[in-house]
């Protein structure tokens, strides 16, 4: 068992790294050469608390189970101090459960020690790795040892691999309404009807993308002189009328206007 570094001015007691309160209790019983079946609770309780204080002083991480054990020991101590409730000898020893748990834990430690010795030697052994000629030597798992966790991990690995092989596509939606088309459409309508209420027409359109295309097309046609726009008041209807110049889609279309729609 590794001793923690004892920093600072020589501590009163050594504080080894215990694997829980039972481990610490066994250590104290062993150190005092107490019988595990007849633990002097007062003495053990005092020593246990002294250890906890020392661990706190050294700023060691003190898990909740150490504190729980401290209160249990205090409880046992108070019960052993009380006069026996009944006269018959069948009265349960309040220490009974603690003794049972300590005995069980001591058994665990014995087996753990055996496993420790085995581990020291056995982790130095190497298996054959030459494989079979002409065989991929794919790693295979013993079916007996395939459990839910192996299954879950495999599934997540497959899905990760799938996600890596199928990155989400870039969101490139094609322009459904071309400014150029809308320009011709508007130009033709205005020249046919001689007058066109733009806002009312836009209100009939449900697709925002088409509205944007129409607005840009209007601005473009006005700039080119294909139509004229009139508005009497702010927020009032915008009327489109035929402009001074004829519209020639092939010659006059400007790339910038398309990009304006893109940016939108």
């Amino acid at each position: 068992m590794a001793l923690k570094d004892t920093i600072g001015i020589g501590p009163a007691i050594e504080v080894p790294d215990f694997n829980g309160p039972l481990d610490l209790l066994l250590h104290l019983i062993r150190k005092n050469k107490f019988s595990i079946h007849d633990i002097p609770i007062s003495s053990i309780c005092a020593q246990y608390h002294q250890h906890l204080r020392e661990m706190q002083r050294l700023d060691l991480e003190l898990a909740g189970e150490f504190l729980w054990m401290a209160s249990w020991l205090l409880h046992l101590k108070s019960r052993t101090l009380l006069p026996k409730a009944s006269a018959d000898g069948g009265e349960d020893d309040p220490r009974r459960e603690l003794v049972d748990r300590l005995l069980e834990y001591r058994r665990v430690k014995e087996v753990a020690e055996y496993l420790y010795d085995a581990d020291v030697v056995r982790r130095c052994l190497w298996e054959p790795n030459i494989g079979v000629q002409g065989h991929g030597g794919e790693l295979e798992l013993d079916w007996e040892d395939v459990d839910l966790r192996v299954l879950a991990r495999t599934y997540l690995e497959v899905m990760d691999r799938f996600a890596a092989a199928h990155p989400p596509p870039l969101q490139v939606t094609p322009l459904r309404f071309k400014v150029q088309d809308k320009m011709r459409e508007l130009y033709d309508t205005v020249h046919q009807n001689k007058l066109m209420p733009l806002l009312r027409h836009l209100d009939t359109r449900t697709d925002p993308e088409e509205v944007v295309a129409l607005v840009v097309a209007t601005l473009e046609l006005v700039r080119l002189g294909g139509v004229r726009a009139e508005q009497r008041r702010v927020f009032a209807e915008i009327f489109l009328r035929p402009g001074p110049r004829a519209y020639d889609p092939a010659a006059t279309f400007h790339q910038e206007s398309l990009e304006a729609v893109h940016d939108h």
Partner: protein
Amino acid sequence: MITDRVLAFLEAALLTSRGPVMVQGLVEALGDGTVSAAEVEEALKSIRDQLSAPGHGIRLEKVAGGWRYVTLPELDDPLRVFHGLAAKQRLSQAALEVLSIVAHRQPVTLPEVNFVRGANSTGVVRTLLDRGLIRLAGRKKVVGKPFLYRTTKEFLVHFGLDRIEELPEPEKMIQDENFEAE
């Protein structure tokens, strides 16, 4: 000098290596400077000679500038049978992948499994059917009416589950905090 320790190390190094072993690497690993490359080469030759006696199933051969153990060609047949038998208690990585997909996405079709894995899984699915870990569960009502697959009762028994609904979310099985909450 060729000692028993050197011979023992050479045997162990060859056993634990996949592919040919370079003499120089062996000399360096022995490291004490008492063994030369020529001595290692000599020791390897003595191991080779020993293995040429009857009753040995492997020989030591020199290829591509290195040394490696190979099995005798006449043992190919029984070895193939043996490794085939041994494979029955084992599950290949591919089989495990298909099983995990069927388990977590059931019912699922072969094309779906293939798509998720990015590899053809026909043979593996047949193996899993033969081993009674997955079963046919009707056909999917899409073009081609492919078979649907589900896990079996035997699958549940192996993983200690009463019903397939008890199969935990894969993420929960791997993440710390949820695992603790169980």
